[in-house]
């Protein structure tokens, strides 16, 4: 079953990568372009993705697809989680603008051979290691103390 998931996500990833490379899609750059120069080209990906996902959840929840707990609605588990989400989301959006694209766009740019994106991905994977070794541990301890 796990091989099935790996192959499915590999094929899905190829589709996502192809579409993102052709369209330049990025959910953060769209807002940046609209805010800076009133360009609405990239921001259209937001309603597109929302409509596509909502439509397919809605259809599959009606025709016996696997959609547990749909719709989720109020799923805030604790105020600590909420604060972490706010800090994480704000930082992600902030630094993504300086990097000229979200992680998906950086993977696509790296696949085009752009060296700045390759440097970004090197930092990205070191960041993952740092989070797992240090920051994640600090956050877990903080949650345990505050909860």
């Amino acid at each position, binding site marked *: 079953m796990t091989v099935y998931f790996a192959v499915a996500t590999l094929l899905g*990833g190829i589709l996502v990568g192809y579409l993102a490379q052709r369209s330049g899609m990025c959910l953060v750059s769209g807002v940046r372009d609209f805010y800076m120069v009133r360009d609405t080209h990239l921001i259209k990906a937001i309603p597109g993705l929302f409509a596509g996902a909502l439509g397919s959840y809605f259809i599959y929840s009606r025709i016996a697809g696997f959609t547990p707990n749909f719709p989720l609605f109020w799923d805030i588990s604790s105020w600590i989680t909420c604060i972490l989400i706010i800090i*994480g989301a704000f930082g992600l959006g902030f630094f993504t*603008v300086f990097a000229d694209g979200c992680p998906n766009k950086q993977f696509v740019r790296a696949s085009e051979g752009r060296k700045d994106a390759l440097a970004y991905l090197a930092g990205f994977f070191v960041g993952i290691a740092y989070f797992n070794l240090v920051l994640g541990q600090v956050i877990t301890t903080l949650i345990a103390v505050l909860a």
Partner: protein
Amino acid sequence: MVKVTPLMSGFIIGLWIGVGMAWVRIYPPEAFTVCMIGHPNDLFSWTINHAFGANFFVHEISLDIPLLTALGVLIGGAVAAIQHKELKFKIRAEDPVWYFILGFAVANFGLMLGYCPIKTLGTVAYGSVQMLIGFIFIELGAIFACRYIKWRLTR
């Protein structure tokens, strides 16, 4: 040749998120079909865990074999770039250290949030209030960065 617009690619990726959840059953968590923070984390952490016996966090679904979306995006992007003669191997990195730092920061903030903007919006479509707050703050962060850039330019 059909021109692929952001609206169209967003819609198709949104459909794939729903198909991956409802029929392929990439779950838990909800709407986890595409996540460019969670899936690369699983791939990297799984590899480190198996190579060095570490104990990095991996989502339940990636415990045996990691989800390979990140690898797929690299392949898909390369195929599209080769097909349309847009490979840019000769472009020099403007400032590799700066981009390294940005990648490092995005990974840490992204893991604090838990997911990437695509997965966050996919979960908003699933009805999650928590991820709605997350998505709003991603865009607020982007707007704040734009204001900072404008302020720096006008100084």
